[in-house]
């Protein structure tokens, strides 16, 4: 009896809950010049409330309506998830294709699509782009007492410098990693969340530097007496700062171009595929006019959010360059980062579980795994015990691994 009554409870609950779910919005179609009259435009924001995407989404949301014939109502809806992939998939396949849905998309959408990240089911090339509200640049900052004042001084150092970072796969991690591509003795400490935690780590002195988007990091850094040591991307009035791109070796320039294209895209907006051309035109024009609107400009200035309109054609070029990047350039992003050096083993500890050698500038401790590291001495596979200090070896190790695990140690 007890089982029966609880069963009744479960079924009853499920039925009522289902009724509550069936309240999805219904969209009506319509044609003609005054299509937008009485309609509601939804602006999808690729992240939760707060932060840059949300603020730009709401800026446009507050002002685009009056530049569209028929003055539609505009609402803003947050759709966070998987670094913007959830919102991009929604825009691509689920949103109504009548021009009533506009999204501020992740600046890296095209890159994420090209490298084939898990979960991507959208195709940027089919979207109707509206343009971008502004480009972004990255700034590199260093602690007050860090032994370097600029990128070139950092490059000349021999000792490893720690930089706080978020997790691999995020924009900010990739842009901090570029310091390593430029041959600087930098080690990334990952696991910090957001610009605030990265900066606090520099202030506490547990790391020597960090990187963040120019708008979100530079002012706070200066206020705490931190040094701005360089930039990635142009910022008006900051020509005295060194550009990281000048330190990147020639053979990696193509990779750099793909990696930094999302920065140029900044805060991009798009509407769904399949929208009638006249409505796309209306939305593109309204987007541009909204960004020229003195009221929007005033509101953006008060929130310290720069505005620098990019037209849809330029944005499309930027994205198609990423989508058509050659495989060998893209492959650099998908494989685990490997640093290759040839060096003498300065020390071998724990019966070969740990080796110490001079890496690119700094001294490196790398772990040797009994199963994952391939060990060769004079061309023959050996056990860890066979490694001795003083041997001359070519070493491949993963600088992103917490213990710098080596994948190959090939000694003479």
């Amino acid at each position, binding site marked *: 009896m007890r089982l029966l*009554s*609880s069963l*009744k*409870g*479960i079924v*009853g*609950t499920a039925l*009522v*809950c289902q*009724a*509550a*779910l069936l309240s999805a919005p219904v969209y009506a179609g319509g044609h003609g010049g005054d299509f937008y009259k009485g309609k509601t435009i939804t602006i999808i924001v690729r992240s*939760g*409330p*707060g*932060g840059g995407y*949300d*603020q730009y989404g*709401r800026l446009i949301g*507050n002002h685009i309506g009056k530049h569209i014939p028929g003055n539609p109502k505009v609402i803003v*809806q*947050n*759709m*966070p*998830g*998987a*670094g913007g*992939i*959830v919102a991009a*998939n929604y825009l691509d396949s689920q949103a109504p294709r009548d021009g009533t849905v506009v999204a501020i998309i992740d600046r890296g959408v095209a890159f994420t699509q090209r490298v084939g990240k*898990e*979960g991507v089911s959208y195709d940027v090339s089919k979207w109707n782009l509206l343009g971008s509200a502004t480009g972004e640049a990255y700034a590199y900052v260093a602690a007050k007492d860090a032994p370097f004042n600029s990128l070139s001084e950092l490059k000349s150092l021999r000792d490893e410098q720690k930089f706080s970072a*978020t*997790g*691999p*796969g995020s924009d900010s*991690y990739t842009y901090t990693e570029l310091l390593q591509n430029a041959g600087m003795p930098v080690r990334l*400490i*990952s*696991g*910090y*969340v*957001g610009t*605030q935690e990265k*900066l*606090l*780590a520099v*202030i*506490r002195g*547990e*790391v020597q530097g960090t990187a963040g988007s120019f708008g979100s990091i530079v002012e*706070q850094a200066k*206020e*705490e007496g931190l040094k701005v040591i360089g930039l990635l991307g142009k910022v008006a009035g900051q020509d005295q700062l060194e550009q990281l791109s000048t330190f990147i070796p020639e053979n990696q320039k193509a990779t750099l171009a793909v990696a930094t294209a999302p920065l140029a895209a900044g805060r991009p907006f798009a509407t769904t595929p399949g929208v009638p051309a006249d409505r796309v035109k209306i939305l593109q024009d309204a987007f541009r006019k909204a960004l020229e609107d003195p009221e929007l400009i005033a*509101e953006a200035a*008060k*929130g*310290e959010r720069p505005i620098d309109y990019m037209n849809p054609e330029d944005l499309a070029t930027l994205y198609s360059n990423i989508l058509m990047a050659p495989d060998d350039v893209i492959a650099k992003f998908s494989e685990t980062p490997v640093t290759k050096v040839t060096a003498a083993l300065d020390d071998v500890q724990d019966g070969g579980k740990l080796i110490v050698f001079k890496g690119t500038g700094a001294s490196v401790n790398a772990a040797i795994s009994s199963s994952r590291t391939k060990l060769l001495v004079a061309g023959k596979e050996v056990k860890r015990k066979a490694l001795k200090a003083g041997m001359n070896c070519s070493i491949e190790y993963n600088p*992103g691994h*917490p213990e710098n695990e080596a994948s190959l140690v090939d000694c003479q």
Partner: protein
Amino acid sequence: MDDIWPAVVSGLVSILQPSAFMYMMLGIVISSTLVALPGIGSKTAIALLLPVAFTLEKFEAICLIVSVWAVSNTANSITSILFAVPGGSGSQATILDGYPMARNGEAARALAAAFTASALGGVFGAMVLALSLPILKPLVIMLGPPEFFVLILFGIAMVSTLSGKNKVKGLVIGLLGLLLATVGVHLVSGIPRFTFGSLALMEGLSLIPVTIGLFAIPELIALVASGSSISKMELNNLDSGRRQGIKDPFIHWWLVIRSSLVGVWVGMIPGLGSSVADWFAYGHARATEKGAEETFGTGDVRGVIAVDAATNAKEGGSLIPTLAFGIPGSSTLALVFGGLLIVGVKPGKDILTTNLDVTFSFIWLLIIASVITSVLCIIFIKPLAKATQIRPSLLVPVICALSVVGAFATSNSYYDVLIMAFFGVAGYWLRLHGWPRPPLLLGLVLGPEAERHLWTSYQLYDWEFIFRPITGSLLLLLMAILAWPTVKKFIRKKRAESGVAHGGQ
């Protein structure tokens, strides 16, 4: 320090101007209605209010935005106590004793105690913040990832106190929670774990849907099955219940102070928020209060008081890193200060020196808004408490809608509704077979934070991080706390033995 007093006064005067005061009241109403429902957090409300703030004077905007944020943990206890549906992430632990109180016919007392404790906690947090202004910077610099890691271990150690009678079951469930916490993209390595290729799982399990599933759905099922109203008793004297509830926090004033300190402490640690403060406070109360072992979980008012004092005191604590370095301690605070930029308030040196009155207006708002909110909420206790008398056929659809919308609105995702349903079934099973549910949430909340601080510490200092002075001392303290019950038992046994020996002679 001489020039502090003019700032204290001018901060108070600025928010008491009629127009500013009116916006504070507006903020309070928004925070106690919209924000107090599950699904809509203070973040969403503030984001919606930013265009309004754009048109306001400086202190009007401060009053509006800061009050929405400051009192968001007061009214969110209502749905927790009445229906076991958490109104926000800070009122999960309120359910544990608040809902049983409602079932015992003590809804009025539980609500009154929660609101009063909220006010006391809010005021206490603000006072701690004011007193710590001169030592803000060294305080924040003292604590890095290794210290955060050990402090979170203290929380994980609470699994045993939250387990109730069956420690082994509690431990198993706590470990299951830690395991579930690993779902999603790993913050340190960027590798997705247990996502099974699903986008919905990339950011891990969201807390609110899991909590609603674990606590609200099983109660809902039980309600439908039993066919009786939530309160099993007659609500004969709401007035005396309310009076008793207002008195309770004052009777347990020492618990209020300790819980508020726990709240301030949690607020200071980046990454931890209300969702952690409530469990820390509840665990602390359960471990230290007399007789808690027997009565907590069955409707003990002290369980409600501890949680609400802590979550409200937390707001003052979270302002500490923000004021010290102009670096917002939480994403909600980042939004608050993003909004205040619009009216020319910049976090950092500015509001600690030339605009010190702004800082004090924050502190005054924490105090005044907390008290007003609690008084307003107390006025509405009677009609609220009567909801526990409504027959299930009317009430169940309402709670159901609240649950579904709450789970959905957290990130506008239908997957979260599925997650709620899954944990609803799991929660019902656990409830039926006497497994404790809180350790699961504790593991789920603390797992990711513990893990990332551990790996960041390791990357920074290798394993030697455990020998850092503060880290090491905290670790020793933790070990002592964990060993104490066993040591106590051992000493007692020895004494008893020697007593027997003496008796024999």
